[in-house]
């Protein structure tokens, strides 16, 4: 099934034409309503009239997460606050959150995009969809929720955690599809095996996203749960989950190209590179009203193909993600930057800002250990004091990162100094 054939199966010429029309309109809109982007264009002598179609895209300046930070919280919004109906946020690079907004129309487009991807996963109005992404500022929970509801499915909004309840609901309500992170689904699979309830379930598909995973992990999930697992991609700056997703052929993630214009550029030169070659994914939001972004650098590394898919869709497809061009980590679906840890530790006077993050995956769940050096000036020989210090650091980091790390106090000489290229992160996770 295809949710919206008129948009998902357009000829390349029709899509180019639609994207060009929308790009011209969007550039004019941003130039007139977003001061910081107008200044960027003026700085290089570019006027809205210079952009006549997608062939002129390369002339436009990039937007980065730093632009969102510098204009925190709502400086890049292109509409008055009265038109904003929803706010979401993700982690910024240095403690300040990245705030995003949506108009009524933005939410409708988001629902449409998610509905298309759920349809790719063979989910329809007679399905019962369990949403086990976090609800709140994170886009995962509400994004999947609204899309599934728009599709007409029965939504069970469980959010994250409480595995026992997740499984009880899944069984008792006859849940047929689940939206969650792939690592959490692996964790659920284990719990299902332990309880021996697989045969009581009618689960048939999973839509997994918010963190990188591999083809092998997909097959492993499918084998253990007897379901079909699909990939969904998105980022809050551009919209949230639903920017792209994979169909039953699993040959790349179909981009909702009528809303999001994708480019792959070289991470070094920032020049566009040909189909099939790996580079940084860049998005221009063609229809976003509240927070339109031009050439937003996602820092995600992937490649693109414009070939028609066997499923009948003609939309361009992204290959599986191959990593990041910056140092962002995705831990339990949450974006974490080492710079956030550094900024948070500066608030704790009893420790030095030297730290080491060790990321691992234990029993299919991501773990984060933060090693912090005891500062000699504040060293106490009472274990009670050291334990209080550990608790304080844990709390400060939890506030900054939105996940609970395990804090370990270490001797001062243990960690590398910040001069040169100190290793701040050891990622032991092996994606099976």
């Amino acid at each position, binding site marked *: 099934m295809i949710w919206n054939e008129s948009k998902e199966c357009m000829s390349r010429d029709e899509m180019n034409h639609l994207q060009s029309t929308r790009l011209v309109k969007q550039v004019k809109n941003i130039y007139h309503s977003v001061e910081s982007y107008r200044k960027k264009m003026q700085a290089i002598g570019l006027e809205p009239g210079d952009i006549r179609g997608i062939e002129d895209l390369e002339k436009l300046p990039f937007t980065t997460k730093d632009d969102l930070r510098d204009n925190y919280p709502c400086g890049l919004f292109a509409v008055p606050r009265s038109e904003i109906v929803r706010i979401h946020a993700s982690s910024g690079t240095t403690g300040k959150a990245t705030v995003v907004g949506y108009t009524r129309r933005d939410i409708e487009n988001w629902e449409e995009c998610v509905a298309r991807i759920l349809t790719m996963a063979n989910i329809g109005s007679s399905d019962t969809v369990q949403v086990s992404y976090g609800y709140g500022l994170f886009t995962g929970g509400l994004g999947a929720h609204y899309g599934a509801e728009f599709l007409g499915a029965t939504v069970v909004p469980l959010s994250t955690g409480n595995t026992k309840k997740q499984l009880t609901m899944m069984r008792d309500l006859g849940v047929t599809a689940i939206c969650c992170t792939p690592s959490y689904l692996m964790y659920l699979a284990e719990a299902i095996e332990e309880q021996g309830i697989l045969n009581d379930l009618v689960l048939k598909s999973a839509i997994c996203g918010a963190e990188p995973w591999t083809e092998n992990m997909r097959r492993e999930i499918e084998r253990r749960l007897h379901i079909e697992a699909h990939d969904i991609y998105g980022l809050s700056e551009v919209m949230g989950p639903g920017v792209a997703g994979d169909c039953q052929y699993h040959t790349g993630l179909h981009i909702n190209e009528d809303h999001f214009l994708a480019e792959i550029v070289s991470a070094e030169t920032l020049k566009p590179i040909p189909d099939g070659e790996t580079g940084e994914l860049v998005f221009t939001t063609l229809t976003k009203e509240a927070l339109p972004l031009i050439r937003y650098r996602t820092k995600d590394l992937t490649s693109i193909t414009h070939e028609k898919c066997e499923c009948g869709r003609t939309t361009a497809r992204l290959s599986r993600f191959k990593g990041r061009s910056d140092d962002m980590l995705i831990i339990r679906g949450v974006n974490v930057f080492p710079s956030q840890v550094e900024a948070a530790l500066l608030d704790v006077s009893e420790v030095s800002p030297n730290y080491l993050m060790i990321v691992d995956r234990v029993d299919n769940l991501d773990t984060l250990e933060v090693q912090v050096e*005891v500062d000699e000036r504040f060293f106490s*020989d009472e274990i009670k004091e050291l334990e209080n210090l550990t608790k304080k650091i844990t709390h400060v980091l939890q506030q900054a990162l939105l996940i609970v790390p395990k804090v370990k*106090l270490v001797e001062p000489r243990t960690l590398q100094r910040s001069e040169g290229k100190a290793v701040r992160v050891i990622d032991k996770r092996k994606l099976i």
Partner: protein
Amino acid sequence: MRMNQISVFIENKEGNLLTVSKILKDNNIDIRTLSLADTSEYGMLRMIVSDEELAKKVLKEAGFPVSITPVIAVRTNNKVGFMHDLLAKIPAEIANIEYMYTLPSDEGSVLILKVANPDKVEAALGQ
């Protein structure tokens, strides 16, 4: 009597305690008594040594967090009930003993007490 105790933070890593004992040996520092408090992540080695200032200097140079803490030393009489009688002398409002251990000596054991208010406790004990 007041004594100076040296405390060393030791991560639970192979060979770490050995490093500390070697440094003390190489500098001819005598360990008169010690207590090792352990958690799952690290240990706290508390010692009464022959020269705590030298011990502090050399262990610090090796990168160990070190502190010198004043503790109260009370000679015991090796009689049943000594500890109870001693502790009972401390008024409840200042009786906050962080930890204690013993130091053997030729004239019998010495109790080492770490308290929050050493002056008040010493006065109460009549030391």
